């Protein structure tokens, strides 16, 4: 049974809520009453439950199986976190309530901020960015503010090839010109090339570490030193923090700013594409420029500093402003803190170790039949990168390979990213997969690789065969975009 669209099922006169009667009053709408139909479709409650239950069953999710998307860190989402975020004391408080009525909430933000600072060994953190990319923006704005405060206008940001796509977009958004830094043969930043390019026009380097090839940048300390020596800052993309949390503190490497995806490392659910949360840690040099608001603990009371004028405090007198209407993603903070407390300092270290162990296990067990471009240069971190070399001449593409995984009951890995490698396949198992699950995945990968090499191209050509949909026509969607439902023409409506 195919589930029709809401608008095909519902009608304007059906309704799944009951509301108290409307008291009779004289309207104060000033004659602006909405007369024309809005065009909303309603359903009784049971129909709504059924509609969305059926829709949900068309999805793949971490609750159903391994979700090995590289760089996305799809790990188990504990239900405790959901329960905690829904406590009325967190879920049902308003951002503009008097501060005395939200002391527990402010304390929670402060406590999470403290954990983030200590896990990274950085002195300050800005909590409000709403997602990783938003955090990047926050970090780059602070860098720009810091340099402008010194009257040191710089125009270029260097971004290695292996960076996330958001990095150059962010730098451009802050008015910088972006220049690429090539990777070396081992998939790392070419330190010499970087040093050569540094100069008075370079404002910052944006670097992802572990990088998007799933490798740690061994020269990170040297890179930071060189960048600082050139008067620039190092922005670190923290999307891959899961590989090193509790093992390495980015502050010890010398970085100046890094966002932390609470929805990756600290397991707040991805929810089909959000909401995320991307707090940014700052070095002492950047801390004064961090955005509003922030929480301070003074005289046994937690205070939300939200107005430059009223509360200018020495530590934040150069704040570059406000990034969001309120105080950020409280719901995500609660979940992340619950996750962090559950693991503790010892458990988080184990997280990184197990994440790295799982990825290396996949790399070790698949590299004989797939091609691991950096497999010889040593262990990977939390994700295993393969190229499509092993598919050469088979007529099977990375895309075909990925779609064939769907027929085996697995979500595909990240495809064609990072760009450093041809036809990349990036697999991040995370620490919450058991060995048995990894073995299942490995069997599938090996089986498909061997099948491709054996010339069984039918298995790949139009895969997936056993999914709710066959391959979808993305070109048609983009050429003639249909972004909302319209009533079919009368003839068609008559069925």
């Amino acid at each position, binding site marked *: 049974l195919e589930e029709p669209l809401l608008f095909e099922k519902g009608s304007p006169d059906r309704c799944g809520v009951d509301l108290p009667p409307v008291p009779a009053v004289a309207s104060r709408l000033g004659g602006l009453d909405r007369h024309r139909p*809005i065009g909303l479709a309603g359903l009784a409650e049971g129909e709504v439950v059924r509609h969305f239950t059926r829709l949900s069953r068309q999805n793949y999710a971490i609750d159903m199986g391994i979700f090995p998307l590289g760089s996305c860190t799809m790990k188990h989402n504990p239900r405790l976190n959901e329960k905690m975020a829904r406590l009325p004391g967190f879920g049902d408080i308003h951002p503009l309530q008097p501060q005395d009525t939200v002391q527990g909430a402010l304390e929670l933000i402060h406590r999470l901020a403290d954990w983030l600072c200590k896990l990274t060994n950085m002195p300050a953190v800005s909590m409000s960015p709403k997602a990783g990319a938003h955090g990047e923006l926050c970090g780059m704005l602070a860098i720009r503010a810091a340099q402008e405060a010194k009257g040191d206008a710089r125009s270029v940001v260097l971004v290695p090839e292996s960076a996330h796509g958001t990095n150059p977009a962010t730098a451009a958004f802050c008015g910088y010109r972006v220049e690429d830094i090539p990777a070396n043969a081992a998939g790392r930043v070419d330190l010499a090339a970087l040093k050569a390019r540094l100069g008075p026009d370079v404002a910052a380097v944006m670097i992802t570490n572990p990088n998007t090839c799933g490798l740690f940048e061994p020269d990170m300390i040297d890179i930071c030193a060189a960048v600082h020596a050139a008067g620039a800052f190092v922005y670190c993309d923290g999307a891959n923090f899961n590989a090193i949390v509790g093992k390495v503190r980015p502050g010890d490497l010398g970085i100046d700013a890094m966002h932390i995806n609470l929805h990756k490392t600290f397991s707040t659910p991805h929810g089909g594409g959000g909401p995320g949360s991307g707090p940014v840690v700052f070095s002492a040099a950047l801390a004064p420029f961090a955005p509003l608001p922030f929480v301070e603990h003074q005289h046994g009371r937690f205070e939300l500093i939200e107005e430059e004028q009223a509360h200018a405090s020495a530590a934040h007198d150069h704040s570059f402003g406000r990034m969001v209407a309120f105080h950020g993603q*409280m719901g995500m903070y609660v979940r992340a803190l619950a996750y962090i407390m559950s693991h503790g300092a010892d458990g988080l270290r184990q997280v990184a170790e197990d994440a790295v162990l799982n990825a290396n296990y996949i790399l070790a067990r698949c590299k004989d039949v797939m091609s691991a471009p950096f497999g010889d240069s040593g*262990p990977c971190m939390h994700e295993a990168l393969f190229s499509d070399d092993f598919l050469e001449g088979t007529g099977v593409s990375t895309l075909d390979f990925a779609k064939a995984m769907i027929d085996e009951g697995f979500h595909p890995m990240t495809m064609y990213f990072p760009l450093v490698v041809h036809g990349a396949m990036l697999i991040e198992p995370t620490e919450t997969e058991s060995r048995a699950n990894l073995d299942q995945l490995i069997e599938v990968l090996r089986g498909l690789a061997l099948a491709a090499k054996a010339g069984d191209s039918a298995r790949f050509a139009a895969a997936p065969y056993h999914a709710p949909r066959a391959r979808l026509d993305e070109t048609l969607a983009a050429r003639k975009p249909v972004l909302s439902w319209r009533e079919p023409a009368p003839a068609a409506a008559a069925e």
Partner: protein
Amino acid sequence: MRYLPLTPDDRRDMLRVIGASDIDALFRDVPEAARLPGPIAGLPHHMPEMLVERELGALAAKNVPAGAGPFFVGCGAYKHHVPASVDHLIQRGEFLTSYTPYQPEIAQGTLQYLFEFQTQVARLLAMEVANASMYDGSTAMTEALFMGRRVTRRKKYLLSGGTHPHYVSVAETLTRFTDDEVVSFEPALTPGAPGDDLAALIEAIDGETAAVVVQNPNLFGHVADLSELAAAAHAKGALLIAVVTEVVSLGAIRAPGEMGADIVVGEGQSIGNGLNFGGPYLGLFATREKYMRQMPGRLCGETVDANGKRGFVLTLSTREQHIRREKATSNICTNSGLCALAFTIHMSLLGEKGLRHLAELNHARAVQVAERLAAIPGVSLMNDHFFNEFTVMLPISGRPALRAMAEMGVLGGVSLGRLYPARADLDHGMVIAVTETVSDDDIDKLDKALRELVK
């Protein structure tokens, strides 16, 4: 540790398969100076679920939830009743724990609700197309400014005085290092119509203006007809960007799209989403079809699969950072997927009939409260026209008054002093929001507390 399935035996065996002597061999790329020998000192170790629950429960208990007593706080976030089925459905693992639908064959659940969401939002705002949501209303507004620049190739924006001051701050922050010019109008205290000075706005539109931004109902609760403003903007080649922070209002008052707006952004929290101390929230973004390809954020579009069956995919992603990198339309990478789902479910429950009823109920309750409070000696109602929120001026300073009311168990509103600390003339002002959750008893308590304070 309860979330980690590997046993010590597993770890040992796997290291052997890998050929590593121990786990630290896998971290050999980390410079020695940065290797931590053990768990970070001074931080607690792992904790049982029961104790995490106890500690966080104790923190939660230090806050006063909106549901605990009379509650009238609004200004961009609203307490509405959300049916239990909404939260039940968004917690289904297939929604909660799925990723961005990059593999549409196994993500039709997410994609179809996004398509339904886009349809609902477009219709609610009376526009033709909507995106699949943004972080929140404030970031959506800023994205609208940048879109205005892309459409008009101009870079001056006029922000009306009735626009939420936090939204204005966000726009100012994000244009701080660009060559955009943001002109923020100060709020006007016009009796009967606080907030905007539409005449002054119209006056200021010139040939350089990319867009005029106006919030409706505005921060002070005033509702206005934007048609004249739209016409004036269009006459100068500028766009009208309308902001809606209380989308329930659109069940009762004309949508910005009906009054000529070119882009409408909004905060969708009121439908399906809780207060959450400010986030996660739900940015709405809609525009005319002709500007579709300039729209930021994720978009879900209809198509067919290889067998000709209808299906949905993320589309127009050629504008996005993972393809265009530094030439991307914006750096946004996530949306508010789960909040959008909650919105879609709640809106499906309401339907046309329910939303209109809900809006009428909000308005009627607000009128009742406004009339009650206006009768208190010394308190003056600033609004002639409003939806579910209005401004009163007190004979005393608003901010301490609200703190005093909180001690009486009444969360009475938002003080203008908090939002505009630099404006001494607004210090006695207070914005009061009234939704369907307010009971008669709540009104009595607000009335009593306020009388107590101003007497």
